[in-house]
């Protein structure tokens, strides 16, 4: 998707009164700015889900997907490690049951990214400094360890590399426990891309890419959330 598509995506969401993009749209936006994302398909039915899973290869992840659905896991709308077509159709039944009859969103069938290193990239607009990009440990460690570093957007690739060196757990990016050294160039491009997304689109209030899993050496955004400013709000 081109960045003109990004503008359309944002305008459409704002016109529909949404405060956030769906995971699927968030990732399309982030991907347009150079953030590697999971291979995934947005589907409506169990049959489509099965077909998508066949195409992606097993195992897969199934998630409820809608704008303003900020806490999928807490709502029980995430099923991981689905190893077969049967698993997918069963999970679809469970998730759609939980989502209830009023759920207007879709379902995301996603490749299951393997990697035990979970990082995150984010963006917030500081009242004083404006768009600020964050990098740090992801997953549950984000809130437990708060091991993060910030830079103001727009930022350079050198800024991004400094952010990687600045976290306490910086050695997680090295070759550890038989895992390869993280592709820092790809990671730096993703960090810079998040800053550019914020600089280009004043409608974006916050971004969370969490987790950003390191698959082999490469970073992949496994979840993505783009929060928009309410219309008329300016900060």
């Amino acid at each position, binding site marked *: 998707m081109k960045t003109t598509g990004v503008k359309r995506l944002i305008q459409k969401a704002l016109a529909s009164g949404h405060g*956030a993009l769906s995971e699927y749209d968030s990732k399309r936006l982030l991907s347009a700015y150079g953030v590697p994302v999971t291979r995934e398909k947005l589907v409506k039915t169990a049959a489509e889900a099965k077909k998508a899973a066949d195409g992606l290869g097993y195992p897969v992840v199934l998630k409820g997907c809608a704008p303003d659905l*900020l806490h999928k896991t807490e709502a029980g709308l995430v099923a991981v490690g689905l190893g077969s077509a049967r698993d997918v159709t069963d999970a679809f039944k469970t998730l759609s049951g939980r989502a209830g009859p009023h759920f207007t969103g879709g379902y995301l069938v996603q490749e299951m990214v393997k990697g035990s290193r979970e990082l*995150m990239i*984010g*963006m*917030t607009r*500081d009242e*004083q*400094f*404006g768009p*600020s990009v*964050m990098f*740090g440990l992801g997953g549950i460690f*984000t*809130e437990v360890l*708060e091991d*993060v*570093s*910030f*830079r*103001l957007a727009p*930022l350079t690739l*050198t*800024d991004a590399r*400094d*952010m990687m060196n*600045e976290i306490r757990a910086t050695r997680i990016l090295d070759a550890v426990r038989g895992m390869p050294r993280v592709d820092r160039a790809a990671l730096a491009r993703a960090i810079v891309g998040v800053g550019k997304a914020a600089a280009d689109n004043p409608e974006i209030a*916050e*971004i*969370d890419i*969490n987790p950003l899993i390191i698959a082999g050496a490469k970073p992949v955004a496994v979840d993505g*959330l783009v*929060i928009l400013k309410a219309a008329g709000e300016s900060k």
Partner: protein
Amino acid sequence: MTAKRNLKRFFAPRNVAVVGASATKGRPGRVVIENMRANGYAGNIYPVNPRGGRLLGMKVYKTIEDLPSGIDLAIVILAAQATPQAVRDCAARKIGSIVLVAGGFAEVDHAGEDLQEELARAAHETGVRVLGPNTAGHISTPADFTSSFFPLGKIPKGGISYVAQTGNFTGAMMKHIMSAENYGVARCIGLGNTVDIDETDVFEFLATDKHTDAIFFYLESLRRPRDFIEIARKVTPKKPVIMLKGGATPDGAAAALSHTASLGSDDRILDGALRQAGVVRIDEFSHLFLAAKAAAPMPVPAGNRVGFVSPSGAFIVHISDLCRQRLNLTFPNLTKKTMDRLKEISPPFIRLSNPVDIFPSATVHGMEYAYREAMEAVFKDPNVDAVVSIMILTKELGMPSLDFIPELAAKYPKKPLYISFSGDHACNEEAKAFLEPRGVPTFPLIEDAFKALDILVRAGQALKS
């Protein structure tokens, strides 16, 4: 509102008025005049006091209105209530800069807050530049000038400039620098309550000030953070900018939707912004002096590789731990040439490396020879960016001649040299009194030399980029 004047005349006033001048010894209205005289201020000083008469041989003017023209700055030492009118009177007399000494404003109570508002209005409406209120004033040694009312005497000149969000940096803290250290200052500003002149205004001036080689900040808040960072980006490649930022606020944005917003506290984002702009953030007040004394006479290190000459294995172990765990300093391998030279000056059974244990050599050849030769060998080594030496000085051993130390510093002007001590305190003081006026900073506590070096290595990284 009138367009704001730059601070050129604020730092180099041609003539000065002291409003609230006093004949009484020890009163601010007299001390400020004595300070200016002690520093050889060349402009005219015009005291103002409703009683008139004469003061220290000068005519006293009864009102601001009576003052002659050609005055660039007024130091106003009046009670808080009288200051807004004094600002307007000075403006009417075409005095462009005012230092407001009085306290009793927003730092005290609500009435004070209102008064401060009134003062801010007076400054903005007249376009006069106002420092304070609630400040001990400023120092500008290139102009032989100070507005400080704290008895200071002659302030040593140098390339260090301080901007402090406290009134008394140009008072008691300046006194500390003058009495404990041997470096001089260029400009020092106690910002006080900041109704007008703020840290960013001063930063902008210091950025292009040819008398300022390094800028130190003590701040509790940033009024115009984006502007400040913009200036910092331009300055840090040219001169070190070092900041102690107090009053870190707790995490904001408790109700934030994203993890990023909830982790984006003011302090974390500020920290990232400062690093991005090449500002070195420090976390100890004493380092405002420690890093300044290191920076004042010595070049900024080109890198973090230290050649360390130590008289004790314990110091080597401890300092190595400190550098590995808390500081970004390394002890590089020395070249074969350096190692061969170190072997020549040591007893045959000794195996040397970096850090260099100089004790065996000193035992055989004496302090002076061993230190001189080892330090020179390390200075010459291309793997070394800076040299730190700890000396054992006692009366019983006899003070060695220290002439070789400033000589070495002069011979290798691209690499900083810091000296520390262990032993007789009186000898340390004697060595400090000899070395520092000759341009070699000394650090009585062994860690301090390395902490100061670490700060300047960080500043050097910004200088490079």
